[in-house]
């Protein structure tokens, strides 16, 4: 029921002009920044050629936010920042302070609000976990998103509020193989995976799906058309060669009568060693660390523990400025599995299209 409120319908105006939101000091010094410094975890100063300074206080964002929570953020921005704030590319909130005298009161205020606005997420530590919808809104997840993130961040909290790791550690989560969190290039990635082939609902498949699309969706050609007799009536459906299924869920994306989700089958795969920056080494994909950890709501203890173990092995073994992937490449994967206490299994060995490029074609390895 569309109620027409306005005289003219406005469309295609695009995003608001970002200039409207820049604090005056930013406008004045746009493109004229000279250097920055992290004053303490979560607090940055940027200094312009002109000598002007901009202070930033970064706080952890839940990403899932009610409008009331946002309004509280706005209240704070009004009080200390002339109403200026921003969000980071990793869903943290940044309060932009032009008036230095307001910095300490702001921090005090933030700290006074319980666990709502933890200050941190800068430098050689662990910042917010980029993540996705999970059970909160999506139809294909193998795990929840925000809940896993909350549990992991609680456990790694100390790394959010400090800068004592060898380098930054970027953690991401995606609740299914679609990888909306783009977890394929993170220092540590949490990925929801299915392990049971699609449940083919013969009785409704033809009604709700286009059979050829479902068949074409399968990267391993595991799906074939089929005819079955249900209650005396012949129906069109599909059969899945279960041996060939690797649970990607692409069939379900195309056909809702092929659900994969299962309380026993679903869980988490952990990945390590990806990066995005071009700093020192080229961007890298994340590689499989642990093929499967069970789905353990509400606090996913096995996953939380495994991640902590990896972070600690890294903290112990890596050199300064070395990202997780750089550390592993220096010491070798056999060492990584040792040091992180992870068992190497068949699943670690690639068997998809480029598998051969991942095999070891040298006698160089460590004992």
């Amino acid at each position, binding site marked *: 029921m569309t*109620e027409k409120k306005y005289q003219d319908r406005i469309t295609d105006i695009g995003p608001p002009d970002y200039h409207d939101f820049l604090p005056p000091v930013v406008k004045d010094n746009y493109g004229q920044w000279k250097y920055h410094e992290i004053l303490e975890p979560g607090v940055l100063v940027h200094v312009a050629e002109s000598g002007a300074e901009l202070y930033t206080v970064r706080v952890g964002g839940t990403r899932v936010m009610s409008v009331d929570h946002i309004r509280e953020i*706005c209240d704070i921005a009004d009080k200390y920042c002339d*109403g200026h704030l921003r969000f980071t590319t990793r869903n943290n909130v940044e309060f932009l302070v032009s008036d230095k005298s307001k910095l300490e009161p702001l921090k005090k205020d933030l700290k006074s609000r319980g666990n709502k606005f933890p200050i941190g997420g800068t*430098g050689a530590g662990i910042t917010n976990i980029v993540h996705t919808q999970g059970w909160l809104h999506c139809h294909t997840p193998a795990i929840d998103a925000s809940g896993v993130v909350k549990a992991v961040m609680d456990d790694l909290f100390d790394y959010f509020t400090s800068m004592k790791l060898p380098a930054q550690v970027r953690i991401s989560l995606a609740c299914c193989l679609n990888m909306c969190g783009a977890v*394929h290039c993170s220092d540590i990635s949490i990925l929801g995976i299915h392990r049971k082939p699609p449940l083919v609902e013969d009785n409704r498949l033809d009604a709700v799906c286009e059979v050829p699309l479902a068949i074409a969706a399968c990267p391993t050609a595991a799906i074939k058309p089929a005819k079955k007799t249900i209650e005396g009536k012949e129906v069109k459906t599909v059969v899945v060669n279960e041996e060939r299924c690797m649970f990607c869920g692409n069939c379900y994306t195309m056909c809702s009568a092929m659900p994969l989700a299962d309380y026993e089958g679903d869980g988490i795969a952990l990945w390590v060693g990806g990066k*995005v920056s071009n700093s020192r080494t080229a961007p890298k994909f994340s590689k499989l660390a642990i093929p499967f950890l069970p789905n353990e709501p509400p606090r996913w203890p096995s996953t939380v523990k495994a991640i902590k173990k990896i972070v600690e092995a890294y903290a112990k073994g890596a050199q300064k400025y070395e990202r997780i992937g750089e550390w592993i490449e220096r010491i070798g994967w056999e060492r990584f599995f040792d040091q992180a206490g992870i068992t190497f299994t068949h699943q670690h060995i690639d068997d998809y299209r480029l598998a051969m490029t991942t095999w070891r074609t040298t006698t160089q390895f460590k004992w």
Partner: protein
Amino acid sequence: MALKHKTPLLDELEKGPWPSFVTDIKKMAEKKPACDDLLGLMELSYKEKEGHWKHGGIVGVMGYGGGVIGRYCDRPDLFPNIAHFHTMRVNQPTGKYYTSERLRKVCDIWEEHGSGITNMHGSTGDIILLGTTTDKLEPCFQDLTHQANMDIGGSGSALRTPAACLGMSRCEWACIDSQDIIFNLTRTFQDELHRPAWPYKFKIKCSACPNDCVAAIARADCSIIGTWKDNIRIDPEAVRAYAAGEFAPNGNAHGTGPEKLDIQKWVTDLCPTNCMWWDGKELKINDKECTRCMHCINVMPRALRPGKETGATILLGAKAPILEGAQLSSVVIPFIKMEPPYDEFKEFIEKLWEWWDENGKNRERLGELIQRVGLRNFLETMGLQPDPRMINTPRYNPYIFFKEEEVEGGWKRSAEEYRMRHKA
């Protein structure tokens, strides 16, 4: 106010030092029945370890082909207030700066028309307004445009909401004006954003330097990454000050405060091209061999800065794994000037879309198409010259294609003549 659903499992997520989305939603639930049911449904998922949302139908806003994700709960019997629970993607202001004023306006609109729950922000960059019913979409949209001067973002087989790092607004390393570029492109390509007409989705992201703070190289079909061509600017005094311990290394990212920086150990030895020398007094860079990785600049922000002849490297094809496996973007234009109104770039990307649109199969991302037909085919259509900067390594298989016109005498041959020279 007591909530309808007991949530003993979710309650566990109210503990601990990290902010709790559960606590937050619970508060909203006091005034929004949808949020109450949302908690109930989440609790059920936590108990059963299975999600409870169905495939979305096609819902949207008049004249737009995307920007809304339809979503229906599979237990409307238990959670009637979220039987329909669609998402609106709202195009974020570039760089994600806000004023409290505008943000409050969005909050008000969303409290009126939706659940009051958001994601700040979605992985692509949008403001996600999470959960409303079909009939609220249009009024919500109208309020957003009229009251907040905001528009919805992309979904479906269309251009997706482009995103940028904060760039020149607050970063000393910005080589290009990432915010302006993305803002300009988004405004220019509104039609492509709002009316899905392509084989599949297409994402653009822009980082103003190779640190790539918006993860463009991993998450965008077209990654625009700032870079420079001339020399790293060195302030020799500041270099000495780092060595002397006057500054905190790496912008204090290690929390050490000012401390003597062992330039040999942490800068020149870690330079991937070994093109730097430090003799204890002077830092020298052989810029010809530098690959602009940013490491030395990152470690000594007060002493080193990118050069002044700036522009962008254009890389194409990043995507998530479905179907062929994940890809990172690959260099196709090593260097391009990026000055408003960005006509050269726009011509490039329009030509690119045209080619992809014509040649791409259904649900084939650009990177997969290039993979399928080969980089050569792509470069030729685009009129780009092959360049060793596009590859990590030349081919190592001998399966070289030649075209007929490249081969002396062409391909037409006579079997008779051949058999004159060679008896069968």
